[in-house]
């Protein structure tokens, strides 16, 4: 589905990503974990074209998307829930969701996607006319996810969906990720809550200062001593 090959990314002269390769197969939930500044957000931004890599290639379903500009990516079936949510604060919930379907022309399909989003996030339906900036943090996260789902993506990239949420809401969000995955969407998940992320993921990659240092079956990594020590606080 998604293949990242030997990607290197620089910020000025600083090399943030030092040759990263990984793969996300159709239907999988893949977790990408690592400590602050490891380069997780940078990788996601590079995949969706917000940053261009110095070298390496990115393939989406065997199409080379390395040089495709960010605004063309979503119509290729990839949606990105960015770090910090980045919803359009000044617009209403409904307008945000409509922007999520910006590339779609078929009104009926948009209506269907909206129903799908409202089914998973009934709270968004209740608050559809509220200005997004006035939503609670949890509701904003739901909106960010809902907005991404409005384009009916084949693959969903999620950056820190649990950031700043209460434990109950974290569980709720992860439950929804599982449901979305069960509905056939492939998921690439970055999160600091490594335990939760690994518990719903099929496979995982561990990133350290711009390099992948460990990868494998998520359940095995959950029991890996070094992972436990570094990321699970055990």
């Amino acid at each position, binding site marked *: 589905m998604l293949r990242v090959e030997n990607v290197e990314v620089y910020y000025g002269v600083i090399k943030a990503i030092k040759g990263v390769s990984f793969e996300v197969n159709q239907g999988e939930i893949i977790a990408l974990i690592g400590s602050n500044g490891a380069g997780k957000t940078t990788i996601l931004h590079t995949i969706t074209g917000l940053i261009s890599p110095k070298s390496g290639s990115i393939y989406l379903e065997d199409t080379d998307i390395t040089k495709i500009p960010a605004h063309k990516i979503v119509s290729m079936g990839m*949606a990105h829930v960015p770090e910090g949510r980045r919803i*359009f604060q000044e*617009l209403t919930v409904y307008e945000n969701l409509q922007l999520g379907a910006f590339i779609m022309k078929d009104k009926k399909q948009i209506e269907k996607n909206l129903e799908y989003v409202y089914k998973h996030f009934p709270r968004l339906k209740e608050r559809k006319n509220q200005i997004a900036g006035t939503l609670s943090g949890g509701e904003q996260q739901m909106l960010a996810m809902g907005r991404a789902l409005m384009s009916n993506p084949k693959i969903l990239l999620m950056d820190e969906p649990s950031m700043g949420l209460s434990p109950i809401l974290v569980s709720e969000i992860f439950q929804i990720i599982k449901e979305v995955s069960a509905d056939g969407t492939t998921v690439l998940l970055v999160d600091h809550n490594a335990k939760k992320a690994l518990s719903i993921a099929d496979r995982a990659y561990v990133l350290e200062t711009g390099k992948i240092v460990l990868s494998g079956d998520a359940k095995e990594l959950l029991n890996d001593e070094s992972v436990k020590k570094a990321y699970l606080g055990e």
Partner: protein
Amino acid sequence: MSFFSYFVSGISLGSIYALIALGYTMVYGIAKMLNFAHGDVIMIGGYVAFTAITTMQFPVWLSICISILACIILGVVIEKIAYKPLRNATPLAILITAIGVSYLLQNVALLIFGSAAKSFTSVVPKFSVELGGVSITGETIVTIAVAVLIVICLSIFINKTKSGRAMLAVSEDKGAAQLMGINVNSTISLTFAIGSGLAAVASVLLCSTYPQISPYTGAMPGIKAFTAAVFGGIGSIPGAMIGGVVLGIIESLSKAYISSELSDAIVFGVLIIVLLVRPTGLFGKKFNEKV
């Protein structure tokens, strides 16, 4: 003349400032830059209309359309050639470029049309309306009516159409807008097109009210409209409109009752006071209508 007539001509002058200010504020809101060449786009629009009406003897409606089209093309081309390569440059570099474009346009006009002001034939048929014992000129009425109409259309466009929403999204977060599939470059082009089209309309109204044109015609209204945009809160559409009208009224009344030499100083004085009290301008905080 009575207070009422000064007031009405202030609204009319202010409507012109408002149309120009919309261009500044929309470009600022979306491209995050001050397009100091905007005033000179107005001047070019005036010359194009002048050439079409006086030299080519085209009908008025056609001349206005040509002027609008010419300004739209000019605005979009300026953005593509001068500003787009500087998308990630420092604000100072962009500002200096904008000032350079402004001088370039003025000098091109000097070269083609000379420095002497030419008299501009008003595009408004001669008529006037009696209101409360005062006679209001056709130019005043048409200017106010056109400005109101444009503002209504613009609000509908921004709030109800997909391209309008895209503009709002880009003004808030370029990166997130791209993730929605919005082409930021074409949205910025569209913004320049709209701003420059409005500048052409403003220029035809301006040159009809003060019936002459020179290479410096755009400079002072440009600065005043910029002041109006800052006064209203740069980036805010209602701010630009209200700022423009308020500025026009202040200018007209201070010309009438205080001194015509001091009126510009008074206008800028008011701006300074407003910015001291509210650094973001009148509407600088009103988020939901900000572009």
